[in-house]
């Protein structure tokens, strides 16, 4: 090859680089390893993490069973090693699955349209807030303290350099639900959006309808986000919301230390043009057959540049495909049954513990050990092979002594009995 270019060494290919830009040495990274050495190194890192027989830790990252079909499908090179489907003629596989994904997200959330995915739940929240600001022409965002703390932190980072101001409103100390009185006191003609989470960070199912009415009374939009997608199998969809965003990790996406996950963005039809991210639409091909393609891209950065609705480009397509396969495998009946198992297990566990809040909950709950600290209770659980709950003091100093516990279909009755025993209820 070099000879056909009239060259004698590859170094001549980059000899034109300014001398001061050329690295005169090898990178200080060990010479290449064999496949076995690589696999072995990562296996050892996996073992350096503690493996638990059971986990009751949720808080935005849930342990749900992953049907085998999911990895079977996403391991196909045609899905795994393809690019964003800009060339529709040779990307109908990806485009069709995204269209199905958008449809299923709408069916689950009660919204009219959904995009092809966002990075994750935490980054979908600020995108929803910005969308609401564009729609209302207002700049003030009210977010419930019962929204995932890290989602709120990401929102705060986004607000730093946008024309967005963020204020928080509290939760009812008895029910654990978003505080209506606190919200009403802060709502004004400047409020672009009220952002809540349901089930909220404490696991409680919010009264979406009354929150929507309150927001709408002041001309604000209601943004409902969710972190535990399995709840949508049993809990009423947030149809009264204007924008729904959230996290699909529960749908066969490994916890994987927090990512990659898949974010959701869905809304009412009338807000479609303000939606960020990619959209797949139905059309026809030259033979008149149904076909799909990326569409409405005039909202996006590669066309509109600095006037785009967002700078998002790469999203989470393959992870969204995992969720699509998951929704297909469980289907209409299965998602309901799965959700019912989660609800029933959490109720079994909650019934044995000293619960902090009275609000109706799905598969997470706040409880306190009868004696000792949360850290001590978790240490006792760890000694018995169980990963305990999240110490809520980390994010809510006023909830010191309480932990957030999650029960899913993967938790067995005996394991829950151990938790109850350690918690001394």
């Amino acid at each position, binding site marked *: 090859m070099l000879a056909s270019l009239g060259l004698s060494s590859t170094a001549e290919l980059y000899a034109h680089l300014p001398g001061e830009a050329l690295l005169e040495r090898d990178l200080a*990274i060990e010479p290449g390893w064999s496949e076995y050495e690589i696999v072995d190194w990562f296996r050892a890192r996996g073992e350096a993490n503690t493996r638990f027989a059971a986990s009751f830790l949720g808080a935005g*990252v849930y342990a749900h069973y992953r049907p085998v079909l999911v990895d079977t499908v996403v391991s196909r090179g045609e899905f795994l090693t393809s690019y964003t489907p800009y060339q529709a003629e040779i990307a109908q596989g990806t485009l069709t699955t995204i269209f199905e994904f958008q449809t299923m997200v709408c069916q689950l959330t009660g919204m009219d349209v959904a995009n092809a995915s966002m990075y994750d739940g935490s980054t979908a929240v600020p995108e929803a807030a910005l969308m609401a600001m564009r729609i209302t022409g207002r700049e003030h965002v009210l977010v419930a303290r019962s929204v995932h703390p890290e989602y709120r932190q990401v929102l705060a980072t986004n607000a730093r350099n946008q024309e967005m101001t963020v204020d928080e409103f509290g939760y009812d100390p008895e029910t654990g639900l978003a505080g209506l009185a606190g919200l009403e006191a802060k709502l004004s003609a400047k409020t672009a959006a009220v952002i809540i989470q349901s089930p909220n960070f404490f696991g409680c199912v919010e009264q979406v309808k009354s929150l929507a009415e309150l927001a709408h009374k002041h001309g604000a939009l209601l943004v409902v986000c969710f972190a535990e997608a399995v709840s949508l199998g049993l809990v009423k969809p947030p149809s009264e919301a204007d924008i729904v965003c959230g996290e699909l990790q529960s749908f066969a996406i490994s916890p994987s230390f927090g990512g990659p996950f898949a974010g959701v963005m869905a809304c009412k039809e009338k807000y479609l043009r303000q939606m960020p991210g990619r959209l797949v639409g139905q059309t026809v091909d030259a033979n008149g057959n149904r076909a799909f393609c990326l569409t409405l891209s005039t909202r996006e950065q590669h066309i509109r540049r600095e006037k785009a609705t967002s700078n998002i480009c790469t999203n989470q397509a393959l992870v969204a495909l995992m969720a699509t396969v998951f929704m297909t495998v469980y289907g209409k009946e299965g998602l309901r049954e799965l959700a019912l198992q989660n609800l029933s297990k959490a109720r079994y566990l909650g019934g044995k513990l000293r619960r902090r809040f009275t609000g109706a909950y799905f598969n997470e709950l706040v409880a306190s050990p009868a004696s000792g600290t949360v850290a001590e209770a978790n240490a006792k659980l760890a000694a018995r092979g169980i990963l305990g709950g999240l110490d809520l003091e980390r994010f809510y100093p006023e909830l010191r002594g309480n932990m957030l516990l999650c029960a899913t279909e993967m938790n067995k009755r005996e394991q829950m009995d151990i938790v109850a025993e350690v918690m001394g209820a």
Partner: protein
Amino acid sequence: MIRKTRLHLVQNEGLLFEESSPGKKAYQLPDLDVPAVDPAAALDGQAREEIEGFPEVSEVEAIRHFTRLSTYNFAIDLGMYPLGSCTMKYNPRVNEAVARTEGLAWAHPYAPVEHIQGCLEVIHRLEANLAEITGMDAVTLQPAAGAHGEWTGIMLVRALLESRGNPRKKILVPDSAHGTNPATAAMCGYSVANIPSNAKGMVDVAALAAAVDEDTAAMMVTNPNTLGVFEEQIHEVARLLHAKGALLYMDGANMNALVGLSRPGDFGVDVMHLNLHKTFSTPHGGGGPGAGPVAVKRHLEPFLPSPRVVRRDGRFEVEENQPLSIGKVRAFHGNFGVLVRALAYIMAHGGPGLRRATADAILNANYIRTHLAGYYELHTEAPSMHECVFSDDKQSPKGVRTGDIAKRLIDYGFHPYTVSFPLIVHGALMIEPTETESKQELDLFIDAMKSIAREVEEDPQLVKSAPHRTRTPRVDEVLAARKPVLRWRP
């Protein structure tokens, strides 16, 4: 002549919702070992009716559905995917295997630190490797994709300038830049000023000198730029910016041209992002997931997103307390599974191997450039790095445009190159073969491109109406946008 492809049988497949019939299912759950509760009562009246329209298929129907759909896709596993600036290189499968290592795939980010030492070591090691590769001082792995990394990087710029008393007003962007650059600047509250390119396709340094002032926060430069040309005056660009107190941001989309050869930290870059799903071979997955780590010089380190992973006395810790941090840009620790894959890629290559891969990527691009130069109009005489850019000037007099040539290339068994980008080249063909293509595949590609050039002369209509050999012929994108149908309805 088309040597690489012939037609084969393809199955038709409807949408899941159309294939569903009541009662079919593809799942099994264990029997419930606790009493089942009544959802209506337990959820305080908030239980839903059934999910209308949701799929109901059997397991074999599910697998056939997705397998059939998969066969409608082109993929790297099927052939060369020379999308310029996208770096569609082979995705080694060992990376997939290690990302599924049980102890890593099931690790919870909120587990106490003593239980997640393995994950933290992965993060720590990858950060160190990327700092060495870029010549920068510190790295955050949290951004979820390139555009997210850009946003994080410009937020850091703003935070540093604010700490000096003035965030300033504008970001300079070359006219050859990716669309994400100006979109990012706008998202960070900056106005955008375009800097023209000179005849060689490089930043016009005189125009930059005239534009940069005390209102300039930073310039976002892609190097090599989107023409695949190394910015030979990059030191001067950095000097001009720094003299006015502005910063140099580098878009690392084209880092595959530099790894092991040249380090942005050594040519004046203050802050940059990498695309692990480009340079470091993590699979693109039909549009993601990616990861967009940001690397910075020491003066920007205090502002990096929280948390940081630090090593103290041989033990890894998560440091949340950073008073100057811009805050969190994403929950948890970023797209960890993507980070695992990228680290495995770096391990497999090692320092010398990374440099060789870069040299091979440059060789492959120049091989294509040399062998197609007589058939397509080369945009610039400046030497190419990892990609080369032609225009359709030789073909457009026949009414054939770059998009048509791209579609005809599909018939020959190749994914199209990047079409009509960069915007400064009228009718651009942007070709990036990457290092993982063999000479045989490159020769087939070159033959295909030459053959299409001949077809343009002899039968332009054949090219204009391509593709002819795909299951789906040209798709009506105008109709899709005019009457949006974004979901299935019964």
